[in-house]
């Protein structure tokens, strides 16, 4: 492996200082399941890594009815995946967590790492976008909270400035009137990057859709919302005809590229198929 220096941060302030002072080519080291691969495959030039795993207070998971689910930067994908609360309240997130990498990878990878890597195909991003999650960001001068849909600025790029560190994520509470789903489309089930991923989070009141968010993964520079498709569905009973028209609209709203995993046309078609299926699956909560 290309050589780099390892630094163990004791506090957020310490980590932030190391990130700024050690210069470019210095990266936060959390789960490491992406960073170490990028170093070995020479995709990223790294001189220093700053391990944040010994920093206290970043491993907590809390839930309450008003604030929702909050988890720290060190919480692994596997730990969240196996939480009954996540299984019951956030089936979209749970499905994304269980489809990421392998068990071995999920025991090391963190959700915060997955979002900071900002891959358009990242599994955990679509459900967090569909649920309207918030990202907690530390800097030495202030803390800020950013809605997750404003966190990404491009493939691999985020609003994080040098020295800023994501400390955790809050996902709003999931009421009894909400239905959620995440569907991942790939060539195989395990150890696969998503070709297209669609997450849906919706709320039904007296049989009418009062709110819906559709998040599309791997079909744009960042994970996208489908605002026009969503608008077509709000206020409807989500009958088959409405869902079909909205799924067609979502196909127009995405901006896929062709690459080694699929062509743009195929991805667009799958957005139509998966959007319809995801809405149907989210509605099964009420069946």
């Amino acid at each position: 492996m290309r050589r780099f220096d390892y630094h163990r941060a004791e506090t957020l302030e310490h980590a932030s200082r190391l990130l700024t002072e050690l210069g470019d080519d210095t990266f936060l080291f959390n789960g490491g399941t992406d960073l170490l691969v990028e170093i070995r495959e020479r995709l990223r030039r790294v001189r220093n890594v700053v391990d944040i795993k010994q920093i206290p207070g970043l491993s907590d998971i809390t839930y309450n009815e008003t604030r929702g689910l909050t988890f720290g930067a060190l919480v692994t994908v596997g730990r969240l995946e196996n939480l009954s609360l996540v299984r019951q309240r956030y089936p979209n997130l749970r499905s994304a967590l269980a489809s990421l990498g392998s068990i071995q990878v999920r025991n090391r990878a963190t959700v915060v790492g997955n979002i900071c890597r900002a891959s358009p195909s990242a599994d955990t991003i679509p459900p967090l976008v569909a649920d309207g999650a918030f990202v907690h960001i530390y800097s030495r001068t202030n803390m800020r909270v950013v809605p997750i849909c404003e966190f990404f600025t491009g493939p691999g790029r985020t609003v994080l400035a040098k020295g800023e560190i994501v400390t955790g994520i809050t996902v709003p509470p999931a009421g009894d009137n909400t239905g959620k789903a995440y569907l991942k489309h790939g060539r195989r089930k395990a150890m696969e990057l998503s070709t297209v991923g669609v997450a849906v989070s919706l709320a039904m009141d007296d049989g009418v859709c009062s709110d819906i968010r559709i998040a599309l993964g791997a079909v744009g520079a960042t994970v996208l919302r489908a605002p026009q498709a969503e608008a077509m569905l709000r206020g409807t009973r989500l009958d088959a005809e409405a869902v079909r028209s909205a799924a067609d609209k979502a196909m127009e709203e995405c901006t896929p590229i062709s690459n080694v995993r699929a062509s743009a046309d195929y991805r667009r078609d799958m957005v139509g198929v998966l959007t319809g299926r995801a809405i149907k699956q989210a509605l099964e909560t009420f069946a």
Partner: protein
Amino acid sequence: MKRMVEFTVNGEAREMAVNGCCSLLDALRDEVGLTGTKKGCDVGDCGACTVLVDGEPVNACLMLAVEAEGRAVETVEGLQPGVDRLHPLQDAFMRHGASQCGFCTPGILMMAKKLLDDNPHPSDEDIRFGLSGNICRCTGYTKIFDAIKSAAREMEATRP
């Protein structure tokens, strides 16, 4: 700069001096001398380097050796309960021909151990899910599944 790392491997306290960029996999093989854990892809795809860290399976190639400080690492060398006794999984893998070239076997054994420790009666689907991060290019997995189910029965029969 080398760092001293104190940890336990298969229950035995060890101390080693490693570079910050050294993976746990390289440290186990080159510093500790336990070459049972294999280096397949070295990027977390194949599962050949699966070891248990504090009881949880991880890819040793995706963990730095310095992170092992204070942790308990179990490798395939620690699987057998005694010098002349095999773990039921090892025995079953031999009897069922679940190993051909053998390169994936140590990782699969460690993953299967974790699977049976958590779930003594796994279904085919449980085994498939449990081993989805371990790639075998020889066996087609059928004999591996047979061996794991056979070991599960064996462990059940001898459980006190």
